[in-house]
């Protein structure tokens, strides 16, 4: 065990190695959040099923039937909506959970040392469980509509990881703001609500006029949702790669920014909580 130096502004030189040492705590915290969630509400699983399904029904009626918007690549409208709903719901859950995670674990942070980033990261992972349940619903839906995906589906895990990173970046940043300014949590539902309207959840991003698509992709969820549809719907579904690149750049920026902000406040968190 090398000598450890504690001093003001002395950030851990081996930060990422330290984080790796705490991977078990990370797993245990994610497992705790999950088992508590599903223990407390016997209808926990049911809830995870109902929310995306009901939203999908509403969106299909509003956008597909009333507005008569076209689907993507010949896929049934409900399947198209659900393929976009899945990453969106995950993003919304993960962002909310990560943002509130420091406050929810305030007691832990004030009493024990560990790399604090473990807490919001574990929150993102536990939001991933709802995502997996949603994925099962999607497969059920595809079976009902007799819609078979093609080989691209194997790339789904890649986009799932991208969705994790997309929510983690802003999540880390908002988590620190949330500790500093306690009324910030009232802003989070608004961000999530607003994000739903400006993301292509109920409709296909292909409907956006060509000259605006690059700008539209500044919303990182546009790239993620596009990616999901591209590998789930397969076939005719086209990927707008320049837009995806823009979305990924924004994701990378937020991730860098979130980690930077987080590491800056990390050491004083215990004094603020």
């Amino acid at each position, binding site marked *: *065990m090398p*000598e*450890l*130096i*504690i*001093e*003001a*502004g*002395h950030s851990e030189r081996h930060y990422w190695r330290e984080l790796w040492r705490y991977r*078990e*705590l990370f797993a*245990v*915290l994610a497992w*705790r959040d999950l*088992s*508590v969630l599903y*223990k*407390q509400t016997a209808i926990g699983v049911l809830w995870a099923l109902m929310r995306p399904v009901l939203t999908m029904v509403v969106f299909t009626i509003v956008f597909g039937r009333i507005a008569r918007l076209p689907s993507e690549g010949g896929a049934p409208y409900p399947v198209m909506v659900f393929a976009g709903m899945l990453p969106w719901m995950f993003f919304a859950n993960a962002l909310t959970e990560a943002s509130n995670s420091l406050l929810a674990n305030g*007691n*832990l*942070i*004030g*009493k*024990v*040392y*560990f790399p604090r980033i473990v807490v919001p990261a574990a929150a993102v992972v536990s939001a991933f469980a709802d995502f997996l349940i949603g994925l099962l619903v999607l497969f059920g839906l595809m079976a009902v509509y007799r819609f078979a995906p093609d080989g691209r589906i194997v790339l789904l895990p890649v986009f799932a990881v991208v969705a994790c990173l997309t929510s983690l970046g802003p999540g880390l940043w908002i988590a620190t*703001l949330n*500790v*500093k*300014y*306690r*009324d*910030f949590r009232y802003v989070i539902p608004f961000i999530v609500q607003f994000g739903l309207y400006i993301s292509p959840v109920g409709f296909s991003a292909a409907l956006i006029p060509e000259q605006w698509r690059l700008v539209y992709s500044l919303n990182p969820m546009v790239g993620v949702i596009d990616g999901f549809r591209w590998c789930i719907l397969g076939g005719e579904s086209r990927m707008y790669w320049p837009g995806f690149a823009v979305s990924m750049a924004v994701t990378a920026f937020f991730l860098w920014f979130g980690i930077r902000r987080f590491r800056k406040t990390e*050491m*004083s968190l*215990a*004094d*603020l*909580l």
Partner: protein
Amino acid sequence: MPDIVIAAEGLSKRYMIGHQTAVSERYVALRDVIARKARNVWRKSADLVHGRPIVQGDSVEEFWALRDINLEIRRGEVVGLIGRNGAGKSTLLKILSRITEPTKGRVRLNGRVASLLEVGTGFHPELTGRENIFLNGAILGMSRREIKRKFADIAAFAEIDEFLDTPVKRYSSGMYVRLAFAVAAHLEPEILIVDEVLSVGDAEFQRKCLGKMDAVSKDGRTVLLVSHDMRRLAALCHRTILMNGGMVEADGETQTVIDRYMAKHGMAAFADLSQRRDMSGSGDARFQSIELLKDGQPCRSFAFGDRLVQRFAIDVVRPLGRGLVSTSIATADGIPVYEYFNIDAGCEWTASRGRHVFTVAIDKLNLYPGTYTMTLWIGDRNSFRVDYAEEAISFDVVLAPAIGVEHRTQRNGGLVYQDAAWSIDHRTS
């Protein structure tokens, strides 16, 4: 110098205390920040218009919880840490366990540190005892494999075998504490940092924990321990550090340091309060001294059921008219138990210039064994603070040999003992 496992140099910690937010609110609301900023801008522009100099309207006061701490602890040492509440003990422990960082100075640590600042950190009520052992173990820094290996020992130590699969929310407080301790007791760090956590739990379990801790130190591991229980410290530690006002006041052989602490901080039956500098209030009247008596003799050790008499002197500098005086009792860890006011007992006080000596007698002391502190307060007719002597004196409640009733001697679920009349109505069905 590989033998020195903890070396602190010039360690200082500053906290900012905002005046606008109450002391209890350590956080700020964004809405307040915006409002305040807007107000400041308005005020400053008003100042500018009126040609007044602009004053930075900062309402933050700094408070140094630690000032220039230097200490070295060697491998295998068991060191006690004592001091009044607010002396900086907890802040020091928090820095050493890397929970918060120092404002100035540095610490060098050689070895794996585990800190136990609270019993059962991270326990979740919905999870079972078994699940909480894994959760708490991971939080305290044990690996899964390590917990698995020690699981049987932990469960046996906690004596909760048959409740392992019950959610801990259904546990009695005793079981909860035992489980939490059992996990902590099986930590095997090179440096163990323990805050006042042993004051909970029943006497027998405490003995078991102490035995475990003793064994830990015999293994050559280093222990840093905060306690208000001087007898326990004397039994466990060879070296003790006394902190006061964020600084190290004394550092040396335990008994010497304890004696000094007792003499200086009202751990004797008499305390001179006239020289204390930390008293707050308007100062129109000041406490001068306090003395504890049993059967007319100075005494700071009382038994359950004893008559405790306290006598304190107040010098009134400026007449207050009708004055209020209170004396309160709290446990060593700061939980208030009683507060007595002169007016509640029908004892009116006219605070005229000169010395006033009060005698307050508590008949039949009904506190469980332990150390307690007494805090004195003077208020004017509007209850504004005139003088305040926090922890003016402390006293011990010890086991009374005459009382053989077991449960009266233990502080289990409550703070005080109150007589109750019991009866049982039994019918065979």
